[in-house]
């Protein structure tokens, strides 16, 4: 009898430990996810070496950092040979702005005629990277709070 109950006790202790373990791991993972999400929001997408060059996650083409959407392949083809796509993803323009940027590169930077792809490219750029208004001064964003105690004599 006694033996059994101690075994039972051992069992429930074991379960508790597993449960606690799960909680710890779950919390840790959630924090990790939140942290990486923050980091993602904050940082400019960069081109990276990935095993699958076509892979898209959360609407982002991983290798280039471009937003997935109609015309993305054409943009990869025409807009990433010379420089990374960061020059695209950092910028926000209306159709006239993208047009004139492309014209400037064609006139001065050896960019070729985009041929049939021209309209597709401009439509993609204008749709995915449109002008956004920021005003005369924005609020401070993405502040990472940290304790200064002991660091400021």
């Amino acid at each position, binding site marked *: 009898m006694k033996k059994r109950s101690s075994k039972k006790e051992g069992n429930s202790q074991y379960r508790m430990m597993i449960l606690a373990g799960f909680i710890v791991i779950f919390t840790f993972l959630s924090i990790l996810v939140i942290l990486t999400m923050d980091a993602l929001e904050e940082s400019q997408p960069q081109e*990276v*070496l990935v095993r699958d060059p076509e892979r898209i996650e959360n609407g982002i083409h991983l*290798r280039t950092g471009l937003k997935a959407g109609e015309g993305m392949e054409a943009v*990869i083809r025409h807009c990433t040979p010379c*420089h990374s796509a960061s020059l695209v993803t950092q910028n926000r323009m209306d159709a006239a702005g993208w047009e004139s940027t492309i014209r400037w590169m064609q006139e001065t*930077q050896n960019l070729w005629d985009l041929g049939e792809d021209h309209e597709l490219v401009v439509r993609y750029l204008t749709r995915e990277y449109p002008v956004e208004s920021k005003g005369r001064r924005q609020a401070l964003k993405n502040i*990472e709070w940290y304790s200064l105690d002991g660091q400021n004599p």
Partner: protein
Amino acid sequence: MNRRGFLSKTSLAALSAAIGTEIFYGAQIPAGYRLIAEQDPDLFARYHKDRDMVILNKRPINIEARAHLLNDDVTPERCMFVRNNGKVPVELQAENWELLIDGESVRQGRSFSLEELKTTFPHYSYNLTLECGGNGRSEFDPPAKGNQWTVGAVSCATWTGVRLRDVLREVGIKQDAVYVGYHAADLHLSGDPRKEVISRGIPMAKAMQEETLLAFEMNGKPIPEIHGFPLRLVAGGWPASVSGKWLKGLSVRNQVHDGPKMESPSYRVPCDPVAPGTEVADENMCIIESMPVKSLITYPRTGAVLETGRSLRINGHAWAGELQVKEVSYSIDFGATWQECTLDKPVNRLAWQNFRAAVTFPSEGYYEIWARATDSRGVSQPMVLPGWNPKGYLNNACHRIAVKVV
């Protein structure tokens, strides 16, 4: 475009992007050309950069500091921003490096080896503030195109070299000299070997200043590869793009230099102020010369949480292009009131100046500390964005950090 060409271009783009380096030149790479993808290059390790630095672009390499990384009086290599317009030249060698001096306004063109420069002319060292003309571009509205720099495209390192004016005098300059343009060894992004990437310059008056150097050392060591090894023109207080890296040539011109990126809208702003978003004709755009007054709070890092009742030490740097900074103030109430900071003199002309203050807070809560510098002519930094311009240059709006008192 035929199907074949289309396909090869696709795979080419994919490959060049995937290996992150420069294998591309136009559409005429032969079919069946095989490329071996390497590892994703670790730019931080490769170029000795602090991992807190922010990469804006890997091709071409553009990296900026965050404000707290710039706390040193003399900016170390690890925290110095990188603004490249093209590809870093390969196989840079100091031994057989030559500098060719030519142009309409030299008596006779001639070249110097790096060794000759070092042994013929006296050496000088200055701490020089170099700020990218587009530092702060990310804030403009409507947005301005290019790399979206926030606050960290500025540095003040110790540069050592010979005076450009000593070299020009030795060569012999005609009366009609107007401008000195530079030529560099970097490579155009398209891979076209005949195409100059960027070739800007300075008017004679700036060229003849004693602090304008042909530099071969940064912070007491040969200039790091990505900052212009082995020779760089360094002209402090002006947009950093006039300080040509990997310097191969200087043209003494009898007109304003007309190399790539001298033309509008590059490094130019409207001669007269315009409403945001205005299209400005080329002839109404003027070349940027001295950079405007500006400051940066480099300690503490934004986001500090501190206990109520204690004072907070802040410090940072201020600079004003060709001028000196005469005053720096801070505000914790969004500019309603300002307190003066202690401000050091520059170690030499064109070096940034250190400031510091002890800040106390009246209660718990969320605060922003704003810094505002004033130059020797009484001109201060604006609290909102300064005049909009098509390429988003010269944003010298006050820097601010967030602080919480609990």
